């Protein structure tokens, strides 16, 4: 523990952050070693920027702790933290020139100098940096970012790339223990971005300080970082080296977000055996037999061969040249398989495919069915997930039926008013459909995720009010953020009583 602590510069312990009841960071724990280049990676709104802002001190955690060198800094204001930030849109002071922008932090700084009085006794004084010291430091910082001689330039006369460099110089000139970078390359064009990636990496090596970098660009994360932290929905999905997160994605989200992948629904059929796309494959992961799993295969890991020699056989339906490789889409039965290969194939050609056992990544399925807490209403419908659905309440009591007044009559002939009864609602992944007519279904929400799984899409719809998720499979392609209503057939809503014992008694 102590060894760990000395090596670790910043540590987030069970940090939660919510803005006006909206949970943005959901129990995040994370520790960063001294000198490491850590990237927080995720789609927009995943909480990566909020995490960075809490480390910088712009936002304070709702609960949990942030430790810097073992000391709690959770509530310390930003100007007291030995941390500097490179802002997303640079945040350079428009009223100051390059020199004054970079010198801003130095002028705030107070250093303790030791002097010797005539008697030879030592004493200390807290002093500002001298003009010469400031000028020397600014000059060095400008050299570091290749902007020698830019001191007098006004910010508005600089190009985007130059502003970016000034922003970096302004941060590193203060010699922070940690440099925070909030999507610093987002505003640059592709070529510039590539150059800056290399320079930032070199700068990290030269300065030897810790970099915490936020981006939504997976390629940027993989090329630059020592450690990648993949986030989604305010939750850390996976922490690992770039190789780890690419080769061993922890779940389908990571697999889908980082790199290209084929994601299939599969079943474990035996020891190191998994069945998907209608065939049983050897694999290297052990799961319980008959467990429903997600199977991830990278497009470049699929080996093409003669039709009769492959485990899978299919017809090429599209070939796209991507510069270094071809992207070949093959129809295998009702599944679509994407392959990346340097070899060309023709559309319409029938090919065989093999997948080496070590390239089949199996992960526990996160969603096998939807389960909610619900309440029976007066009209014998069930309310859950911000919606109201028609259901068959007679399934709660075997042999019961409804009388003319819509009261439930049990097999014993007992009349029960179900209004207000708390139930557990279960809906299968295949039993939900959606419509863009908001009135068509029992609940409404926005689509927050779509993942293609070879022959269907797995879609998650989240309701606006209490943020309940509906997870389901569909053949239709929807768009993220679409506002839709959720339709569930009456007979597909499985209800179970919550307090069976009490009812019985």
């Amino acid at each position, binding site marked *: 523990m102590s060894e760990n602590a000395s090596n670790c510069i910043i540590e987030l312990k069970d940090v939660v952050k919510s803005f006006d009841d909206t949970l943005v960071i959901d129990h995040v724990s994370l520790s960063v070693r001294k000198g490491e280049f850590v990237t927080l990676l995720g789609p927009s709104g995943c909480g990566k920027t909020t995490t960075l802002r809490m480390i910088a001190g712009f936002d304070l955690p709702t609960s949990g702790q942030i430790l810097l060198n073992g000391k709690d800094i959770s509530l310390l204001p*930003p*100007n007291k933290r030995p*941390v500097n*930030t490179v*802002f*997303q*849109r640079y*945040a350079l*002071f428009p009223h100051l020139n390059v020199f004054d922008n970079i010198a801003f932090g130095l002028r*705030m700084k107070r250093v303790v100098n030791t002097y010797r009085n005539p008697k030879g006794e030592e004493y200390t004084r807290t002093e500002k940096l001298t003009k010469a010291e400031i000028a020397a430091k600014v000059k060095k910082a400008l050299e570091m970012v290749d902007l020698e001689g830019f001191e007098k330039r006004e910010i508005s006369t600089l190009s985007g790339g130059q502003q970016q460099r000034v922003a970096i110089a302004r941060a590193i000139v203060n010699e922070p223990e940690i440099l925070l970078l909030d999507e610093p390359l987002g505003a640059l064009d592709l070529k510039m971005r590539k150059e800056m990636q290399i320079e930032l990496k070199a700068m990290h090596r030269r300065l030897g300080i810790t970099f915490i970098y936020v981006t939504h660009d997976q390629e940027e994360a993989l090329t630059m970082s020592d450690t990648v932290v993949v986030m989604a929905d305010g939750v850390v999905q996976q922490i690992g080296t770039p190789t780890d997160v690419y080769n061993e994605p922890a779940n389908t989200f990571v697999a889908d977000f980082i790199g290209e992948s084929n994601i299939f629904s599969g079943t474990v059929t035996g020891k190191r055996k998994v069945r998907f796309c209608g065939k049983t494959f050897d694999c290297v992961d052990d799961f319980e037999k008959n467990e429903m799993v997600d199977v991830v295969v990278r497009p470049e890991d699929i080996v093409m061969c003669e039709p009769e020699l492959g485990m899978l056989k299919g017809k090429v339906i599209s070939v796209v040249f991507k510069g270094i490789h071809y992207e070949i889409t093959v129809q295998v039965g009702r599944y679509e398989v994407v392959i990346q290969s340097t070899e060309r194939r023709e559309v319409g050609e029938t090919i065989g495919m093999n997948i080496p056992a070590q390239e089949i990544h199996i992960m526990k399925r996160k969603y096998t069915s939807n389960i909610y807490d619900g309440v029976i209403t007066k009209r014998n419908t069930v309310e859950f997930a911000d919606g109201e659905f028609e259901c068959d309440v007679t399934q709660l009591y075997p042999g019961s039926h409804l009388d003319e007044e819509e009261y439930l009559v049990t097999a014993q002939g007992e009349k029960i008013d179900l209004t207000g009864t708390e139930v557990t609602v279960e809906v299968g992944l295949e039993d939900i459909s959606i419509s863009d007519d908001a009135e068509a279904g029992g609940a409404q929400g926005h689509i927050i995720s779509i993942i293609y799984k070879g022959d269907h899409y797995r879609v998650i719809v989240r309701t606006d009010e209490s943020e309940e998720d509906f997870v389901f499979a569909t053949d239709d392609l929807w768009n993220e953020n679409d506002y839709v209503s959720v339709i569930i057939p009456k007979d597909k809503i499985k209800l179970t009583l919550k307090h069976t014992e009490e009812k019985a008694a």
Partner: protein
Amino acid sequence: MIKPLRFTRKSLGIPYAVFLVFFVIIPMLVIVFYAFTDKNNHISFVNFINFFSDPTKLSTIVYSLVIALITTAVCLVIAYPVAYILARSKMKQKYVILMLFITPMWINFVLRVNAIRELLNWIGLLGEANYLNTIIGMVYDFLPFMILPLYTTLLKIDESLYEASADLGGNSFTTFTRVTIPLSMPGIMSGITMVFLPSMTNYVVSDMLGNSKVTIIGKFIETYFGSDWHMGSMIALILLIVVFVSTLLSGGFKSEDNVRGTNL
């Protein structure tokens, strides 16, 4: 060759151009003419010389400047926190509160001055403290002219600049002096001009609240309108030059800062 008369888009401006010539340009030239002629309509600098050699005239000007300066300073001190608080507030209704500061501006100006006159009369200041009353009245009437330009510039300051300052070690005081104030300078300048100029010239306030005992430059011009157009024109011309120079210095008139602006 005779060009056929044809409707062009430019010709739409002709009526307004004519209007400007007759009711803006010519009257200005008339002022210049009167300013530089004597009573026999001969070209002369007598008004100019008389103006700058008469101590009573000069002292009136100085009084007027001092009143305007104090009014402007008080407005700035009161308005800056209002504008700052509203601009940085995350409240959804902050726009409504800003509107509340502007709303009194839509009541007839003279009625508004009359209202403050009644208030001053009620607390017993009317006729007792003419200069103080004039300043109170001007601050009351011109405050929104200061709040609005300050609010618009402060609103434009990106939140990340405050964060950058804190990130680089600035505390709230240094952030205010080194970031907020310099960045809101355009608003400060335009607010100052919009308060300073009417405080020198709008004599309705000083007449109604100062018991007609306070003479500001605007009133000064009016008193000459009855007796000596030449001197009146000279003072008007000097005022005109002062106003144009100060407007140029503060970066010109911005329509977005206009308090009665319905484009709010």
